[in-house]
C-alpha cells in the first residue's frame, strides 16, 4: 500500500474515510478530415445533438432536485446552446461548404467563443469558458460514437 498525503483547504469540517478518485478532464483528439457524404455527416450531427440534449436533461432534472431550479440554471443554458440557431446554422453551413468532418467544425466554431472568454480578465468569464467546453466535448464524444466514410 502506498501512502500519499495531500494538503489542501478544508471545505467542510470532519474526517472522512473512503476511496479517493482523481478527476482528470479528457482532452478530445480532433482530426481535420474531409468527408464525401455530407448528408450522413449532417444526420450524425443531429443525432449527436439530440443525444447530448437527452443526457443534459437528465443532469438538469437531477440538479433541480438537489440544488433547486435557480442554481441548476447553468444546465438549462447548456441545453439552450444545443438549440442555438446562430451556432447550429454556422456549423451546418460550414459542413456543407467545406466538406470537413463535423467533429472538426464543431470544435472550431465553439473555440471561437472560448477564445474570447479566455482573453477576459474576469475569473467568472474564464469559468464560463469551461461551461462552453463541457457542452462542446459532450457533442464531440457523441459524434465519435458514430462512424462515417
Amino acid at each position, binding site marked *: 500500500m502506498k501512502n500519499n498525503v495531500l494538503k489542501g483547504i478544508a471545505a467542510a469540517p470532519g474526517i472522512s474515510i473512503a476511496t479517493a478518485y482523481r478527476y482528470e478532464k479528457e482532452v478530445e483528439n480532433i482530426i481535420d478530415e474531409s468527408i464525401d457524404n455530407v448528408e450522413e455527416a449532417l444526420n450524425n450531427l443531429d443525432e449527436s445533438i439530440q443525444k447530448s440534449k437527452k443526457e443534459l436533461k437528465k443532469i438538469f432534472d437531477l440538479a433541480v432536485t438537489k440544488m433547486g431550479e435557480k442554481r441548476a440554471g447553468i444546465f438549462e*443554458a447548456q441545453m439552450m446552446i444545443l438549440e442555438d440557431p446562430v451556432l447550429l446554422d454556422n456549423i451546418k453551413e460550414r459542413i456543407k461548404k467545406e466538406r470537413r468532418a463535423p467533429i472538426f467544425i464543431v470544435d472550431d466554431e465553439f473555440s471561437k*467563443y472560448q477564445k474570447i472568454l479566455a482573453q477576459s480578465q474576469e475569473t467568472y468569464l474564464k469559468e464560463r469558458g469551461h461551461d*462552453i467546453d463541457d457542452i462542446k466535448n459532450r457533442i464531440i464524444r457523441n459524434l465519435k460514437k458514430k462512424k462515417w466514410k
Partner: protein
Amino acid sequence: MIEKEVEIINNAGLHTRPAATIVKIAAKFNSDFFINKDGMHINGKSIIGVMTLAAEKGSKLKLTFDGDDEKEAAEAIVDYFERGFDEL
C-alpha cells in the same frame, strides 16, 4: 430599425441566467435583434453569443431591433434590462 442604449444595473452583471432569459424573450419575436458592446456585435438570439459578452454592472450596450414586431421586441427587452434582470 430601432436602436436603444441600455445600462447594466444589477450587481452581478449579465451572467448566465439573464443571458438565457434575454434569448428566450428575443425568441418570441420575429425581429432580428443584435447587441453591440465595445465593438463586439452579437446576435441576441444566440445564447452562446450573449454568454460571451462581458457585461459588468455599469456597462452600456447598444441594442438594435429590425423587423415587423421590432417595437414590441424592443419594449420587452429594454424593460428586462431596466428591471435589472429582476435582481434589484
